[in-house]
């Protein structure tokens, strides 16, 4: 039987790991829920941002907290350009899967051409710092990630709920024609949201560079679990994405502590199936 310390530590690790799931899910959830575009290239954009953080940190010795000021706006612009393609070719939900998958593959190859397929690791002096609270250790970097994810998710939720732009976006997602009749310019708002989603991928990428291993093929490593998080959290719901990420992260981690680490991937999809069948009303 695992000890209370082991269970507590596993829970902390899982919730913090879930912060990354939530952060990655944030942009994807907005794009899918409010623009009806399933953007698979979101993962590739996050990894591009991670590689840029790595490059700026290792080659030019720029601290990631500074490089993010360049990377996030750059990702926002990429998001705008990407949406121009969607808009120009009138891409629908199903076609977006194929187009963004192709875009992700192209990005993967480009990353491999420049950075090679070899593993990259961005070592920083704070990557292994922890705070000790009683018998438990809280990794500082993962804690910062969770806080950033929390701020972004709450901020986005408030923006969607309380501002005219946010309400207009939600109205367009419900019924674009009726929203347009009330003067909502869905096209412009869609550009804004697309840029925002890509910018969130940029933030996630910065943390990926600091926490995870970089290899071009890793782009696909997060896809399954993040999709589960997006669906569990409800499309277009930023807080839902964050909480779902933490739920999945904690469930995986407890499974690793109590059962076997090999069970972890089964957990996320089992939780997804259970919640889809149960269909709780969390609104």
């Amino acid at each position, binding site marked *: 039987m695992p000890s209370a310390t082991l269970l507590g530590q*596993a829970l902390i690790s899982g919730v913090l790991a879930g912060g990354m799931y939530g952060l990655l899910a944030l942009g994807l959830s907005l794009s899918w829920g409010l623009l009806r575009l399933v953007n698979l290239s979101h993962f590739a954009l996050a990894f591009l941002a991670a590689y840029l953080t790595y490059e700026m940190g290792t080659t030019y010795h720029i601290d990631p907290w500074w490089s993010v000021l360049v990377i996030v706006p750059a990702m926002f612009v990429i998001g705008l350009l990407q949406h121009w393609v969607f808009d120009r070719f009138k891409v629908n939900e199903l076609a977006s899967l194929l187009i963004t998958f192709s875009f992700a593959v192209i990005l993967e190859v480009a990353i491999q051409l420049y950075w090679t397929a070899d593993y990259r690791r961005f070592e920083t002096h704070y990557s*292994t710092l922890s705070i000790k609270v009683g018998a438990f250790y809280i990794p500082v970097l993962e804690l910062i990630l969770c806080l950033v994810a929390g701020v972004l998710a709450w901020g986005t939720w408030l923006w969607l709920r309380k501002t005219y732009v946010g309400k207009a976006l939600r109205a367009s997602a419900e019924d674009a024609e009726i929203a347009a009749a009330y003067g909502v310019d869905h096209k412009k708002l869609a550009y804004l949201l697309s840029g925002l989603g890509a910018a969130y991928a940029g933030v996630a990428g910065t943390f990926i560079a600091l926490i995870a291993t970089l290899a071009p093929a890793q782009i696909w490593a997060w896809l399954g679990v993040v999709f589960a998080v997006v669906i569990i959290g409800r499309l277009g719901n930023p807080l839902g994405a964050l909480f779902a990420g933490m739920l999945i992260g904690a469930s995986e981690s407890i499974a690793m502590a109590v059962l076997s680490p090999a069970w972890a991937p089964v957990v996320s999809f089992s939780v997804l199936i259970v919640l889809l069948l149960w269909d709780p009303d969390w609104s």
Partner: protein
Amino acid sequence: MSKGMGAWRRRTFLGGALAGMVAAPAVLRAAPPGKPVRVGGTLSLTGFLAQTAAIHKIAAEIMVEEINGRDGFLGRPIEYVLLDDQSKPDVARSLYEKLITVDKVDLIQGPYATAPILAAMGVAQRYGKIIIQSSMGIPKLQTYDMAFPATPFGPEPDKSYPNVILDAMATLSPAPKSMVVLTSKFPSAQFMAQGMRTEAEKRGVKVPLFLEYEAGNRDFGAIAARVKEANADFLWVGSLGLESNQILEALRKLDYRPKNSFHLYPAPGPLALSPDGNLVWSSTFLEPDEPFMSRPGMKRIAEHYKERATKANLPYPIIDAQAAGMAAQWQILEQGVNGAKSLEDKQIAAWLKKNVVTTVYGPTKFDGPYNHGAPAQLIRQVQNKEWKVVWPKDLAAPGVKLING
């Protein structure tokens, strides 16, 4: 086949041509004239195995130039027809089929990693082609009688290599009495982990915790908590790539450092250079030190490898067992062709079975089960951010010995 056909990407390396010969050492002559002997093969140039395939590709390029500088195969230049199997066994299978039936290559070379090798071996067997490989970590799966291993795993590395580790552990003071075995479910790592647990228990080393995680596991926090709680004297990790770095980092976040740890197939550079890597153990077959550098051709190959790998922007441009494995593949094929004085697969295979071949791994025989010779898997340890062979003692780098962590 035309160039640039998507998955069937082709890299043709004609010895004596272009930049290859510019970089060739003075002792090498120009490639011989005549119709090239075409040797086909795949490597995982893209996909999750691509980082290792990049190493194999460089080693193969060097060896093709070396062999052409030595008169090629039977006085004809060799041409390496290399395709990208995308790290997928099914693609590897199709590409070997194509190499043999459409491209009509004269000979083939094995791909990288157990699964693509198994796929390629099936095709080789169907067409009666000899296949040489250097990275099948589960020798008992090599059941085709014209398949030859270039790396000296020995026929039962799951039994032989754990005992090498246990022998080395026994020399520590105090000798470890317990061991956590943590492994990726990647087949060759899992295979060795099960062997490690069995052999450790046979020799009285307790295994209080045996954990398996999925290849590509993202978060090691909970696993680290379990390793810390078990607090064994020794940590054995069946890791691939950067998993070892991630595990040691996760342990450090819990303020825990295993007294001694072994890592099966780590990314050598990142682990050696990591603050957590000091004094960790790993498996190897050679390192660029004596006595290995005195083996025929080794020094030259190591120098070329360093030059090319640096140019290719590989983060760890030092030759190790991965690159050496590919070099050995070509050395075996060259000696087989020259020894048999033929390009006929059956004759080459027959010659290899009867003779001793000299490769970067030393004298190599194929007279045991699954065409394996004696095992020669060694232990290396990170000392001052460099990998050094430390066990067995007679193969340790000069002045280097195993240090207790």
